């Protein structure tokens, strides 16, 4: 005869085991769902390549309208999205792009680097002007009203999410897409690079874009 207390203990052990199995099953299903979601996202991104880059107008660091199609026949464009309070990924992308551009013929005069904010609430034209000047004053910094930015994010599959950061003094951080859209002089999206590409790899891609 098993004492009641022991039986209870056995049951108490069995219950978490069931939960663990269920938890693992849910975890596995979530992983599969996320893999599919990730693959769909990648396909959506890749489908943009080779198509005409969607035209848009936002406000530059001087408070003036900047239109992508105005660059046609003048400059190739390396467009990426970020925010000035971003300490790691955005400055790394900016640094790699400006370095890679310098390796191009004529110092990369044929290429415009464009940084569009995903944090327009903090990134005003004045803030963007000071920010891009720290790297390279020829970089175009773009911002705009939610009405102006929303269709741009949608056209370029830019996902971004302000993360409440209760335990950090940073206020809020923004998780965001880190793709770099490489648009040629004819306004065609030729390739998508990534922020983690080395300067050398980026330089090769930029050379192909501007040649």
């Amino acid at each position, binding site marked *: 005869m098993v004492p009641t207390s022991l039986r209870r203990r056995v049951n108490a052990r069995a219950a978490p085991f069931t939960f663990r199995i269920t938890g693992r099953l849910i975890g596995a299903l979530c992983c599969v769902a*996320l*893999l599919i979601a990730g693959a769909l996202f990648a396909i959506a991104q890749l489908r943009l390549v080779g198509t005409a880059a969607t035209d848009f107008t936002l406000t530059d660091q001087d408070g003036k309208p900047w239109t992508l199609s105005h660059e046609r026949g003048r400059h190739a464009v390396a467009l990426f999205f970020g925010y000035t309070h971003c300490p790691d990924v955005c400055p*790394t992308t900016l640094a790699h792009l400006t370095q890679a551009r310098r390796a191009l013929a004529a110092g990369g005069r044929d290429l415009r680097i464009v940084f569009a904010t995903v944090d327009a609430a903090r990134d005003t034209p004045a803030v963007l002007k000071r920010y891009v000047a*720290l790297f390279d004053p020829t970089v175009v910094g773009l911002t705009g009203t939610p009405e102006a930015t929303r269709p741009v994010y949608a056209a370029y599959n830019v996902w971004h999410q302000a993360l409440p950061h209760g335990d950090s*003094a940073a206020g809020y951080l923004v998780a965001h897409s*880190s793709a770099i859209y490489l648009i040629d002089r004819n306004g065609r999206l030729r390739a998508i*690079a990534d922020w983690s*590409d080395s300067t050398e790899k980026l330089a090769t891609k930029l050379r192909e874009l501007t040649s």
Partner: protein
Amino acid sequence: MIRTLGLLAGLSLLPAAATAAQTVTVSDAWSRPALDTGVVYLTIRNREAVADRLVDATSGVARHVEFHQTSAVRETGGMAMGSSMAGMPDMATEMRRVRSVAIPAGGTVAFAPGGLHAMLIGLRRPLTAGRSFELRLRFAHAGWIAARSQVRGI
């Protein structure tokens, strides 16, 4: 290296740190230009036979210093993925605060772009290329260790 150790020991404000600084070293600290929120990348080496832990950091250039970890996110339609898929570029990134960083016995921990970094929050003035500044790191065992971070031009 001896000179670096001497410098680190000399910079440490707490006398106790002078001895500890010989076994835990902080080197190659550098930053990128920044307006309001900056970054410091560095290398920590622990020559001790026991593990240590980086627990805090301060710098005169910023109101707060925190440790953060950047990681890749794969996202669509409100779903985020933490794992990475082979051959595919990172599509999105996010950062998480890390309260402390374990420094294994005899090990090296590198703070580098796209990974662990010290985040300078509320810069008192922009970090411009060519500037350098002091960052002080507090370890659970080794105490305070100071390092100079160089703002690298691009």
